[in-house]
Every structure is written in C-alpha cells, then in structure tokens.
C-alpha cells in the first residue's frame, strides 16, 4: 500500500529531514510512527500525502510513484487519504459542520447524504452538539477532534494522523485510538505518529521509530 524506497528528503536550506529510508506498509495495516521532536515524522507523512516531494528515492502509494504524478493526479491520490494535521489547519471562517463538509464537497458527494455523513463523523469524536459553532470557540482538544472528524468523514482508504492525541487527555486519547482502530478494522490502512510511546505500546502494533531522519534501533 505504502512503499518507501531509499527516500531522502532535503528541505531548501540543506536540512535533511529523512535519510535514505526504505520500508513498506501493507494494505489494511495499522502502524505507529514514533520519534522525538524533529525526527522527521511529519515529513514522512507529508511525503505519503504528496504534500512534499522526495529529494531522491521513490514513494509508492497504491502502486503509484508519487514523484511521477501530475498535480491533478496527486489530488486524486489525496482524496483517498484522510489527513490529521499536526497544526490542525481548521478554517476559522466557517462552522464546525462546514469544516467537516469540505472533503465531501471536494469529492463531489451528494449534498443531502453528505449532511448525514458529517453528523456521523462529528458524533464519533463527540462534537455533535457543537456543529453550528465557529471553531474559535472550541477548546484545543475539541479543535483536534474536529480535525479528526474532517479526516475520516469521506471514509479514506489511508488514514494519516500526525500527533492526533497531542492535546487530549488520556480518556479522549484512548477514544480517538479506538476510532482509528475501528477504521483499521473495516480495512483502512492507518498510520499514526506520536512522540509519546506509552499509548502505542498498549496496542501491540508495529512501531516505526525515527531518530534524526533514520530508523532508531
């Protein structure tokens, strides 16, 4: 499903975020991504979503080499990916409901069914009562859950979550993990990053550990 082949990512300015990484993630797998701040977790996730391009090596998603895709084709790859951004990327000029509606608008989902989908997604993260609110009035953790609802509303086949539980207390963090697990159980490929490993170890899944852009042994 996801395959890295000797991938190096160097940011403008010479900063090497990933160094010659090779690994693969099977379809339907649930994998954790661990590492300290600056280890390259976000960079790795962005490469999978085609938000950043590899400097060398190849990133394959669904057997498609992302570096060979045109911009419009990249968009279609992203439509099958659910992304929880580390910095949320919530739109503050529209309601919670409309934020979650955005991915469905993008894939051209029928508007009437879409409303049901949006409510179901908000229900799963415990935000159903706040659908008409503007996001500024949500707490940090609620904003994070909003971001998660937006990532799952269009039922992506790949779910990439960048530190989804960073601002959540343990109870909500576990809830969110359960939500991701339920996605995994219906067949989605799930990749979750965190710098706190304690939560991951309870699940007994594969953990990819990064340190300064390389695998930590």
């Amino acid at each position, binding site marked *: 499903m996801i395959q890295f082949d000797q991938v190096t990512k160097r940011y403008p300015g010479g900063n090497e975020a990933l160094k010659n990484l090779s690994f693969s993630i099977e379809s339907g797998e649930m994998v954790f991504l661990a590492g300290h701040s600056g280890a390259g977790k976000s960079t790795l996730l962005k490469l999978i979503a085609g938000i950043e391009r590899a400097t060398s090596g190849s990133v394959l998603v669904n057997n498609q080499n992302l570096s060979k895709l045109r911009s419009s084709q990249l968009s279609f790859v992203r439509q099958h990916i659910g992304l929880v*951004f580390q910095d949320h990327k919530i739109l503050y000029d529209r309601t919670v409901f409309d934020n979650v509606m955005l991915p469905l608008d993008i894939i051209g989902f029928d508007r009437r069914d879409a409303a049901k989908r949006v409510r179901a997604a908000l229900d799963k993260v415990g935000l159903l009562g706040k659908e008409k609110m503007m996001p500024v009035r949500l707490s940090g953790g609620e904003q994070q859950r909003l971001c998660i609802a937006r990532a799952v509303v269009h039922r992506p086949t790949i779910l990439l979550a960048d530190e989804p539980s960073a601002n959540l207390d343990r109870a909500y963090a576990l809830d969110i993990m359960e939500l991701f697990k339920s996605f995994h159980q219906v067949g989605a490929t799930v990749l979750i990053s965190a710098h706190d490993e304690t939560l991951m170890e309870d699940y007994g899944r594969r953990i990819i550990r990064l340190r300064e852009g390389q695998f930590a042994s």
Partner: protein
Amino acid sequence: MKHFFYLHWQSASNAFTRILRQPFGSLLNLVMLSVALALPLSLYLCVNSLQDWVGRLSATPQITLFMEMSAEDADLAAVNSTLRKHPRIKGYRFVSRQQALKDMENRNGLSGLADGLESNPLPDAFIVTPATIEPHELEMLQKELSGLPMVETAQFDASWAKRLYGMVDLARKLTVFLATILGIALILITHNTIRMQILARRDEIEVAKLIGATDSFIRRPFLYHAFWQGVLAALIAWGLTCWLVAMANPAITEFAMLYNERVNLISLNAPEVLAVIGLAAFLAMFGARLATGHHLRQLEPR
C-alpha cells in the same frame, strides 16, 4: 453527468450570491468594468451610425448645376439636351426657381416667405445623377458641366464626403484601438479583483488543496465570479449605451434636419449585444484564470 451539472450550477449560483453579498465592493468593480466596456461601445455606435449615413451619402453622388440668374428658357433647353445625350449621366431632374422657393417654404415651415421677398433669389437648377461613382471621373464630369454655357456652378459634395469618410475611418480605427486597450484593462481589473479574493480565501484554498481538491475545483468559484462580473458589466454597459442613444438621438435628428438629412444613432442589435456579453465574460474569466493559475502554482509540492 447530472451530478457534474449540479456541481457547476451550485458553483455558479454561489458565485452570484457572493457578488450580491458584498454589494459595495462588487458595485465599484462593476462600475469600473462597465465604464471600460461602455466607452468603446459608444464610440462603436457612433462610428457605425455615421458610417451608415456616409454610405448612403456616397452611394448616390449628385451634382447640382446652378444656372445663372439671367438664364433664359433657351439656355435651359440647351443644357437640357446636353445632359440628355451625355453618356456619363444616368439621370437628372430640373428644379425651377419657383419650385425651389416653394420647396424651401415647405421644408422650413416659412410659408409666406415668397410674399415677403421682392424677387425670387434662387436660381434654376439641374440635379444630375452621374453614371459613375468613381471620385476622379466625378470630378472630371463636374468640371465639364460647370463649363456649360450659362451654368453658374456645378456643385458636388465629393470632397466633403471623402473627407467625412476618412474621418469615420479614423474613428473606426480609434474604436479598435480603444477597445483593445480597455479589453486589456478589463482583464487586469478582474485579475486584480480575483487576486484580492484569493488572498482573502488563502487558507481555504490551501486546506482544500491539501485534502485533495483539484485545481479546477479551486478555480471554479473564481471563474464563475469573473463570469458573472463580465456578464453584469456587459449588461450595464449596454444599458449605458441605450441611455446614450435615447438621450442623443432627438438632438441629433433635429440637428440633421437642418441639413435635410436623416441621421440617428443605431442601438446595438441582438447579436452584437450577445457578442459583447460573451466577450466580456471571456476576458474576465481569462483574467481570473491568470490570477488563480499564478496562485495555484505556489501551492505545488516541492
């Protein structure tokens, strides 16, 4: 397929309500755009109408032979027979001095004019329609006719018509020039409006792009916005020209009557209106396309 049209319809109506929802800013923009359109359109109308009139003028060139005041019936008969046999004359008509005076009375509503005058000041005249419209030949003919005995002058308006024709031609070139300049201005104005809008919705565009929106999805609302702006501006500009026509025509007609001519501004016809709307919409969308293209390129992954 139905869904595809539904999405477009949604984009179009959203863009339209967006224009309506920010009345002041979009009104200002619309005014700018419609003035940019109305200027060349008005000039075009004037040129078109003038050209129509000049065309009618030069299509029937006429030479008027004014006889000497002392011309006798015999002299008239001599000229008459010359004209009848002349190969380069298609037809002619005799207007006696009494007839001319009566015409003048009728035309200018000056009944009783003749009574007030001691003697008729008007000469006998022949109005000649030449068989040619070629300017050089016409001039030759005019010279020849003015040399006939007892002919005072042979008046011909060729030089005047030619000059007028030249002026219309110049005005037409000016219209093309102005239309080009203002067409470019229209592109730039919409480019700028759309650029401002993109800046205002930068976050939305970035997020949409990150979660899988195609460039055409992102572009669509802006293109529709530009489309409506172009269409509305064209309609307003058309309204302005109609206003111009309604306002100017009575004055022009009155003025032209003094010279016994029928001149008036001709409004745009339906195909022309459609063409203007189409062109304005196209130019506006072109400007929007440039603006969105520029912005979207900056969002590409590196």
